[in-house]
């Protein structure tokens, strides 16, 4: 059911095209905002949910794994709505309104499972991008599996400094993640299992 316009938007999102993403953001944010604010959310929740849904669409579009059974807008609202309902459920809060003109069929059950699985990843990314540039630079190389010697060669920092910085940055990242309420909920669920 996807039309040429939707496919073009998906291509732009997959390519990281700023113009396409900005236009999509501006057009759709007010709807998501209305829904989340009416359902116990705040401005930060709106941004988080919207961006997490965009990341999901990006990952799917990039690997050609997105098959739309409805318009992109309907699909996207469905994803946002499910992300938010999922978070509310974890916080034991009730959805007051379903007014987002989305039918439940617009989001495949497999996507709902994927939303659940991606929750932890969203938390990781959220805090990683808040780190200083230097931390991001060092940790990105660590996550790529590079040794201290290699990182030192790439960045020009001494090995001692790289080692020290890597520990400080990773420790600070883990601390931020562990304080996040969604992460805490996920850990509790995991422990119960």
């Amino acid at each position, binding site marked *: 059911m996807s039309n040429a316009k939707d496919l073009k938007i998906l291509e732009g999102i997959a390519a990281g095209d700023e113009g396409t993403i900005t236009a999509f953001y501006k057009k759709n944010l007010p709807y998501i905002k209305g829904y989340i604010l009416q359902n116990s959310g705040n401005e930060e929740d709106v941004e988080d949910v919207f961006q997490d849904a965009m990341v999901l669409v990006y*990952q799917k579009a990039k690997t050609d794994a997105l098959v739309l059974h409805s318009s992109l807008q309907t699909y996207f609202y469905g994803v946002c709505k499910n992300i938010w309902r999922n978070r509310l459920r974890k916080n034991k809060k009730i959805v007051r309104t379903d007014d987002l003109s989305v039918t439940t069929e617009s989001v495949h059950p497999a996507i709902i499972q994927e939303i659940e699985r991606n929750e932890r990843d969203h938390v990781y*990314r959220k805090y990683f*991008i808040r780190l200083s540039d230097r931390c991001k630079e060092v940790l990105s190389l660590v996550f790529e599996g590079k040794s201290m010697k290699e990182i030192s060669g790439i960045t020009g920092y001494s090995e001692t400094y790289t080692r020290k910085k890597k520990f400080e940055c990773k420790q600070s990242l883990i601390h931020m993640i562990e304080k996040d309420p969604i992460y805490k909920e996920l850990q509790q669920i995991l422990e119960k299992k």
Partner: protein
Amino acid sequence: MERTPEIFEKIEAYLNNTLSQDEVLAFEKEIANTVELQNEVEKHRSLHQTLSDRDTLKFKEKLVTISKKIKKEEEHSASQPFFSSNWRIAASIVIILGIASFFWYTFDSQNRTQELYATYYQPFPAEDITRGKPITELQDVVSSYVNQNYTRVIEALENKANINDQYKLYLGNSYMNTNTEQKAILLFESIPEDSPYYENSRWYLLLTYLKLGKIQKMKPLLNAIIQYNGLYKKDAIRLKEALLD
């Protein structure tokens, strides 16, 4: 479990398969006997898995930047109606009164910004010289910089093509210390957002504006530095509070 650099190194070596067979066996035994260590290893494993996807991280960063831009645009457009209605007359009166009081205020506030500048300005620290590399001309520049011989730093770097961002910070700080702030501003602004020195460049740009007493220019920078939540956050909050006093 206390987190130490040694534990992190061990876990990373284990995840990167760089431990010897004996070390792997010993470490796996340790993991099996300690639930906390088991959890810690899993935490690192999942972090490495998720955050090694740089494309998705870049996409997420792009979203954050776009969101900020949209908010800025919204704030800007929200302020427009004020000037497009009958409020114009009232605004004109306010502006006239404002200009009069500005001269009185400027005299007092200049002293205040200079005091704050003296409190917050510390030259951008020169980094330890990377071990095992020969002494180069640029390292001589670092020595001059450390010894506060700023004129010499400017002479050495000003006409050099393609200096890296770290040296731009040395040069910018040298300009700040030789009353050539406009050059410092241009230099700090030239450091791109994806540079590892971007956060530093924002801080020194902020301090340059502080030195010049340009408080309006400082506001968005202060907010951006606070939101960035990095090295300068605490100082930025204190400075913002001091400016609001």
